[in-house]
């Protein structure tokens, strides 16, 4: 079950209280991600006028993920059924991501290497896998801490090769890497990179390497310097994401600041740069590990 521990430790840097319990914060972030991910896909596929009926598949998942994640995050004590449903919905997200990846890959067949730039974005559906995996990880309890031994309420126990913290850091690192590759390929459509795009590329690669470097270590083995580097990198992600939002909005606005919906959807997607901010926020939450995990409440 969800822990109510608000006390967290930011590696060896600091120890403080979160406004809400750590797992609830993570679940709320998952809820927000699920909803906005499906919303963004809705806008993208709507601009394509849902030419292929399968383009509707990812749309209902967002509201579902929003409901199950929010339910777990806000309920004082959720029943096992709520956990099972949430895990199934998140697993469905992983499946949708995999199917989407396959559909986008099939659409790229016959285009040579041009698909990298001009086809349906191959990597984009993997975001569903990422959110689904984080959603599942947020709903399970690791007991004992840093053991990789998970209790899934209503389902059972599982042993993972790495700790929960490392799993989440790996997901962030891979998410940053895939996001950076998307920046590289998507912006190539414009025939070259401008200054703001280079910022995203440099940050993306740097943050990916830092995060994957952290993921390779157990939390207790992360040095103070490495922890500082990771935290500052995640904070920088918030800045890069917001700056990217500004760059995209500036590009989308017409003369005199005119708002043309078509450009906001088809030209520079306003929500895309926020992925860096989103991953930065996730990194900061993950970096702040709960201090006490009462084991007697761990297993349903």
């Amino acid at each position, binding site marked *: 079950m969800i822990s109510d521990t608000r006390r967290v430790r930011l590696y060896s840097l600091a120890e403080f209280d979160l406004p809400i319990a750590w797992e609830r914060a993570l679940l709320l972030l998952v809820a927000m991600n699920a909803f906005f991910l499906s919303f963004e896909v809705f806008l993208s596929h709507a601009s394509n*006028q849902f030419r292929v009926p399968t383009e509707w598949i990812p749309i209902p998942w967002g509201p579902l993920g929003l409901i199950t994640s929010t339910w777990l995050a806000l309920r004082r004590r959720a029943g096992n059924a709520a956990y099972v449903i949430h895990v199934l919905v998140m697993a469905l997200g992983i499946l949708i991501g995999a199917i989407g990846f396959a559909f986008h890959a099939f659409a790229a067949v*016959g285009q040579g290497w041009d698909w990298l730039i001009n086809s349906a974005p191959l990597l984009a559906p993997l975001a569903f896998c990422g959110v689904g995996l984080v959603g599942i990880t947020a709903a399970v309890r690791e007991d004992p801490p840093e053991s990789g031994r998970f209790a899934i309420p209503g389902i059972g126990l599982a042993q993972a090769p790495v700790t929960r913290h490392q799993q989440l850091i790996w997901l962030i690192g891979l998410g940053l890497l895939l996001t950076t590759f998307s920046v590289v390929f998507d912006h190539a*459509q414009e025939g070259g990179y401008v200054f703001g795009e280079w910022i995203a590329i440099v940050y993306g690669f740097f943050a990916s390497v830092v995060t994957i470097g952290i993921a390779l270590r157990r939390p207790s083995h992360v040095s103070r310097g490495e922890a500082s580097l990771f935290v500052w990198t995640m904070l920088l992600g918030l800045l890069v994401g917001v700056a990217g939002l500004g760059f995209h909005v500036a590009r989308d606005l017409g003369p005199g600041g005119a708002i043309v919906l078509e450009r906001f959807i088809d030209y520079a997607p306003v929500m895309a740069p926020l992925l860096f901010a989103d991953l930065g926020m996730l990194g900061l939450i993950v970096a702040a590990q709960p201090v006490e995990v009462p084991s007697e409440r761990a297993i349903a």
Partner: protein
Amino acid sequence: MPEHRPPRLLLWAVGLTLVLVALVFVAEGSLSRRAERSSSRIESGAAGPTVSTAAISADKCATCHASATPGIVTQHLDSKHAKSGIGCANCHEVQANHPGGIEHQGTWVVSAPTPNACLGCHERETREFWRSRHALPAWAGMTGTDDFTPEQKAQYDAIEEVMKTPVGIGVSTRNSLYDIEGPMVTAAACESCHAIGRPNLDGSAGTCSSCHLRHTFSLEQARKPETCNACHIGPDHPQWEIYHHSAHGVAYTTTGANWNWSKAAGRLTPQDIPAATCQVCHMSGFGSQGTTHDVGDRLSLYLFMPMSAWRPGAGENRERMKGVCSSCHSREFIDNVYLRADAVTARVSGIEAEAAAIITRLENTGLLSKEPFDHPIKFEAFELWHHWGRTAKFGAYMFGADYTQWHGIYEMVKSFSAMATEAEAIEKEGGLHDAVDWPLAKRTPLLDRLNEYRGPGRIMPPAGTVLPQQKPGGEKLMSPANIPVHGVQK
């Protein structure tokens, strides 16, 4: 590790980042070239061998038609449709009972798919087209609405900007030319353009391929002004000639080969297409405007009419057009262009009102029949509005000074003079010349009569004029009697 030293991870991160960024930097040129090559290949019709081979082998129609109609197959295989896996059957194959369908090789097909075939994938574009003058109103302008089904008639009536009460001499009878000339002629003449809005056997309206030439359906082709040249040319609507005479057309003619015609819809900027084209002004997502397939969406006046009227939502439509203009021009410049052009339109409408009065008077006194085109003066009256009046107005809004002057107003005045002289002769012959008191033919010098419309307060809408927001069916003529002055409709 001592805490004051930078962690080894930072060094790794900086080092790997430099390597990865360097790789992207090196690949940037290649990626960009690939993006350009890919889009230009789609638009130019130079398909890659992978597409052709795969599409032919996958499409059983293509295997036969590659020999029977190789041109069509080549066009299709070069298209974005083929690249996206859209085959012949997707558009041509129909149910057995489909109107106009024929049995062919064990299935049923239509030779010319209608917009219903496009609707499945391009719904927004198709529906925008259906509510535009390019759809049923284009056909009705030639034949009237008699051959519409009840459903098509209902669709026609639902089009907001259909002019339900055309005003002016010759407007209500222009369809009679279609009958006078006969189907042997009109099939090869009027219909080739007006078919863009033809009623189809399956109940749909129009044909998308009038602008999107089959079977490549190239974005680049549809975007170029030559596409509009197919119809918007000649004495009745010489937009093609006027455009080429304008600075916009000069820019297109001299530098258009280097413009970025293949930019994705909704992404066009003045960096891609640095001077106006037909499509940029009327359809493209450009400036503050999104893409539309309703060609009247940014138009404020019925310029095709003898006495021009404000379109429904004229003010909003004009603001949308100004939103396109403002990508390159200042607001003051744009307002002045409209101010001058509106004055020309008011002037032209005034002359045409006078010409209409001549014909009406002769008809009402029994000196002329009410049959269309049965007297030379009616041809003169028809050309006055249908050719010269329109040309003068189009020229005013499209920067075609020569067309406003010598191919427009001058020809109008000349026609009007001929009409007045001929009307006087008809009246003398009928013994009515001294008995009537109609305002034009009574020995008043021509220039004096025309100058009745020159009062600056009457025809010159001042800067900041608020245009009327008309409701469908409530058209108000733009004439000296109701030009908005200081924002107030007279």
